[in-house]
Each structure stands twice: as structure tokens, then as C-alpha cells.
């Protein structure tokens, strides 16, 4: 397809510690189209955030390193860029919303100053023009009375407002790709719903592509066009959102969806997956989900399953899927 904005191919990122090499992500491939929302879902520590940080090349150095693969954004392989060239991409082409809005803002500057930082870095505008950009960024995130709010310090704002300011910073240079790392986790349900509606609206206005990292299938259902399910550093299934919900093929995906509480079902206990994810230091030779899988076969313990595309845009890595 020609409108692919980001193509990640066989990305491997490891953390080198005294205890050994943690393969945080191991051969992850996916693509994101322009103007689309792509969901990355999985339980804690499965490599979602590391995937996001790898795309921005902001892994905590020197422990974290990308050891293989390609990250192609609009024809440029980001892994081959120099540090300086990469800085020019950050904020302008790709942006990221970090997990916690409470600590993502510098307490000593006004929010206007912080939103303006990205604008000043990338666009070289005069101060009065920076202010116009900042106000329009705040307006994009529907912050009321932006002309007054730009002079506020972060501590003067509520959590929901701060999260919107963090969104304004990310959108201030109108990036083409936005990585949102669990942006709604710290918010309560009402604010969360507002925030998701807001992002859909922003996407319509700016045509930005979004990689939405979450562990919440409810958010995925509302927000994303396509979804990739991650488990222990690998993508196990990729499909359109509706396909994932209606016909999940990988046992892990099915189990995850099963463990979401439903209002219309009267189960006594919520479904849960037995066991723990494998240690990234000591991975099983075969499928990483095999020890917890219900439909496990002999081959699952010995060899890693190949990724097969079973229908258009739906690929699965499982020996049980033919």
C-alpha cells in the first residue's frame, strides 16, 4: 500500500544488564498507515513502551540498545540517522505522549513556555508567533481560555487539564506520527472517555497517525482501526479491530478478550490466564505462550511459530492456526 507512513521491520531491542541480556522486544514487525490509529496491546512488561521508545530512539542509554531491524518513517530509516538528525525528527515528525501527566511537565515553567519549546526548536519563529502557535495547540486540545491558561504553572491545573497540556506539547508542531503511551491510564473513566473523543477529533482535523499503547481493550475498541497484540516481546496477532474482537485466532488474544469484564454476563469469577509471562532473561525455545496455553501441542515447546497471514491484514503467530 502506498499510504504507509511507518514500517517497522524485525525490530529487536535488548537491555544489557549485569544479570544478562533482556530481549525486551524480539523481531517485531508492523506498519502504520497515514491518519490511522494503530493499537499496541498487551500486559505489563510485554514490550509495548520499549517499542514506542525504540521508534523515537530514546531508550535509556547505555543499557538499552536497538540491535537489529528497520524503522522506516516516510522512506527514511530512523536507525541510520545521526543523533542530531534524529533530534530534528523528534517533536516535528514523531511525537510521544508519556504515561504520567502529573510528572511530564516541568514545575518551574508556565505551560505556555513548555508548549512553545518544541515550536521554538523546530520552527524558529519570533516570540509573538510562538505564542500564536501555542494558543492554537491548546485550542486543538480544547483547553478553555487558552490566552489565560498559557500563563499558568502546571501545579495550577487539574490532572485532566495537565494531560491535555501534555497532548498540546506533542501536537504543537503538528507531527505526522504520535505515539501515545497509555495516556488514559492515569485518568478516571469520565475524563478518559472525553480524552478519547478528543483524540479522534484531533485525528480528523490533522490527519495524524497514532500508535496507541494500552492494556485496555475497551480503549482499543473505541479508538483503534487496527491492533497488534504483544506477548513477551513479540507480536502474536495483528488484525483490524473488529476482527480481533469477533474472531481472535491466537489463544492469547482470545484469553485476553475473555478476561475483560462484561456488564451483560453474569460470571461469578472473572476469567484469568493461568501462570506468569516468561522471564525475558530465560526464554523458552518454542512459543513463548506455550506454558500458559490451553491448546498447546508438542511442536509449541520446541520451535517458534512462524507468522502467517491468514486473511488480508490478519496475521497470527501460532502453530494451532493453519
Amino acid at each position, binding site marked *: 500500500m502506498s499510504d504507509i507512513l511507518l514500517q517497522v521491520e524485525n525490530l529487536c531491542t535488548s537491555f544489557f544488564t549485569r544479570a544478562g541480556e533482556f530481549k525486551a522486544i524480539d523481531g517485531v514487525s508492523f506498519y502504520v498507515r497515514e491518519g490511522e490509529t494503530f493499537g499496541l496491546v498487551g500486559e505489563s512488561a510485554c514490550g509495548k513502551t520499549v517499542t514506542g521508545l525504540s521508534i*523515537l530512539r530514546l531508550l535509556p542509554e547505555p543499557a538499552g540498545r536497538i540491535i537489529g531491524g528497520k524503522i522506516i518513517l516516510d522512506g527514511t530509516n530512523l536507525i541510520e540517522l545521526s543523533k542530531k538528525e534524529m533530534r530534528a525528527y523528534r*517533536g516535528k515528525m514523531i511525537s510521544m505522549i508519556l504515561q504520567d501527566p502529573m510528572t511530564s511537565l516541568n514545575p*518551574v515553567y508556565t505551560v505556555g513556555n*513548555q508548549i512553545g519549546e*518544541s515550536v521554538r*526548536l523546530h520552527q524558529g519563529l519570533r516570540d509573538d508567533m510562538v505564542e500564536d502557535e501555542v494558543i492554537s495547540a491548546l485550542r486543538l486540545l480544547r483547553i*478553555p481560555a487558552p490566552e489565560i491558561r498559557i500563563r499558568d504553572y502546571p501545579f495550577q491545573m487539574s490532572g485532566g487539564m495537565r494531560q491535555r497540556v501534555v497532548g498540546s506539547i506533542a501536537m504543537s508542531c503538528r507531527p505526522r506520527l504520535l505515539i501515545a503511551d497509555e495516556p488514559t491510564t492515569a485518568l478516571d473513566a469520565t475524563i478518559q472517555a472525553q480524552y478519547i473523543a478528543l483524540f479522534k477529533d484531533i485525528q480528523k482535523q490533522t490527519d495524524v497517525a497514532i500508535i496507541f499503547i494500552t492494556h485496555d481493550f475497551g480503549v482499543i475498541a473505541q479508538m483503534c482501526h487496527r491492533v497488534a497484540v504483544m506477548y513477551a516481546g513479540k507480536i502474536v496477532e495483528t488484525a483490524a479491530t473488529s476482527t480481533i474482537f469477533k474472531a481472535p485466532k491466537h489463544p492469547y488474544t482470545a484469553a485476553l478478550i475473555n478476561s475483560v469484564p462484561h456488564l451483560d454476563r453474569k460470571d461469578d469469577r472473572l476469567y484469568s490466564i493461568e501462570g506468569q509471562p516468561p522471564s525475558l532473561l530465560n526464554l523458552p525455545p518454542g512459543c513463548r505462550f506455550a506454558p500458559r496455553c490451553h491448546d498447546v501441542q508438542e511442536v509449541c515447546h520446541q520451535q517458534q511459530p512462524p507468522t502467517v497471514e491468514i486473511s488480508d491484514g490478519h496475521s497470527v503467530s501460532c502453530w494451532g492456526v493453519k
Partner: protein
Amino acid sequence: MLSIMPNIEDKTRPKISGLSRRAHIMRSLTCIVPLTILSLLVLTAIFAPWLAPHDPIKVSMTERRLPPVFMEGGSTKYILGTDHLGRDVLSRAIYGARISLSVSLLVIAITASVGTILGIAAGYIGGRTEAFLMRFTDISMSFPPLVLAMLLSVILGPGYITVVLALSVLGWAPYARLIRGEALRIRNSDFVSQARVSGASPMRIMIKHIFPNVINPLIIVMTMAVGFMILAEAGLSFLGIGIPPPDPSWGSMVADGRGDIDRAWWITTFPGILIGMVVMSGNFFGDWLRDKMDPRLRQL
């Protein structure tokens, strides 16, 4: 909706009156009193030649150890009495303000700047840079300062610049340690990640994001250092490797009067009171400044 928003013209937001009127007055006193004392002393130092009633180094052997004016035998000629060489204590204290204050301020400016730069660099860059800078700091801190001061004094000869150098050469190390710890903490905070996501360079992050967040502890340590530096200068002067006599500094005045403390207490007491006042004023003013500069505490 708009009615709850503050008016655009209204630059001064309504203050949250969490404090009683009395507490407010007490709080502003901790600013006004120390600031007044410090400014008066600085003005005294600047205008010393016009304020001092006598020549501070003029010896008068017939008028030795005269008591201050309010004691029996004192006269209005020497308001705070004279020392063991018949020199006017008041004039020496006034001129001493010049040396004592300027030495300590100069040393603090040098050590704080060097320590902050090295500390931020070590804390933010990390890795080998940090290892090298912090080992260098450790070595500096393990070196006996007096020995180094003596060495410098022998090489350069005693004098004003030697004192400043001797106190600065090792004095930056505690700042570097403190600031490195703070920088390390701030480096891992989300707003630094946010700045990196926005494409800020390491230099920009260090100057714009880390530095403003280390100012508070820096100011506290700097104000505490005022007293320490005055005392350190006194120690050097006492050992004869500080400000050479006959030039007065508060420290050397205290040292000079030590032998006479049983019969002429005023020689040591008045410069001692001045040292105490500067130290306390520095600490109180530092505390007040910290409250004022931290936006999280600003509206309290």
C-alpha cells in the same frame, strides 16, 4: 464557564489566605530583617573610608586596650574601644567588612558555578564522564584544605588572591556532589523525557530543564556557605596564610583578641557578633528565598 476564570487584565490573582495576618508578618520579617542587615553591611563595606572614624591600621601604643564608650574608662573617641596595639575596633570592623564579605562572596560565586556545571554534567551525561568527574570530586574532598592553602600561600605569597584561590580550589566539591545527586533525580523525571521527545539537545536540557530545578538546594547551600567562608578566611588569617596584617578582616580580629579575652573582651566580641549576624541573616534570607522561588510553594 468564563466567570470562574480569572480576568485577563487581573495580573495579580487573588491570594489564597491560608495564613493568618500574624504569620504573614512573621514571614515577611524573615526577609526584611536579614536583607536589611546584609544591605547595611554591604553599604558599610562600600563606604568604609567615609564611615570609619579612624585609620584602621594606625597604631597608638599609649591607647592600648581602651574599653568601649559605655564602660568605665571608655571615651567617645573610640566607641568600641581599641585593641592590643591601640587600633580603633570600630574602624577595623568597618574596614574588615570589605575583606570578609568580598572574600566569602567571591569564593561562593566561584565554587558554586564550578560545582554546578560539573555536577549537572556528571549527573546528566552519566557513564564515564560521571565516573571521572565524581572520582575527581572525591579526591578533592579527601585533600586537607589547610595543607593546600599553605602550599598555595608558599607559592603565591599570602594575600587576598591567595585566600580566594585557596578556598575555591577545594570548595566546589560539595556543590558538585549535591548538584549531581539532584541532576540524577531530575534526569529520570518525565518532563526531561518530554523535552527529549520534543527534540531538545542534551545541552538545552541541562541548561533549561535541569538547572532551574537545582536552584533551590543550591541557594540553601550558598547561603549556609557565607558563614563558613568567613570562618574559613579567619582560620587562614589566624595561621598567617590569610589576609596579611595589618589589614583587618573580622576573622583576624577575632584571632588577634584571643589572648586578651579575659581583660579586653571587646576586641573579639564585636567582630564575632558581626560574623554571627551575617551567618544568621544568610540562613534566614536563604530560607525565605527558597519559599519564594519554588512555584509549588508560591501561593501558600
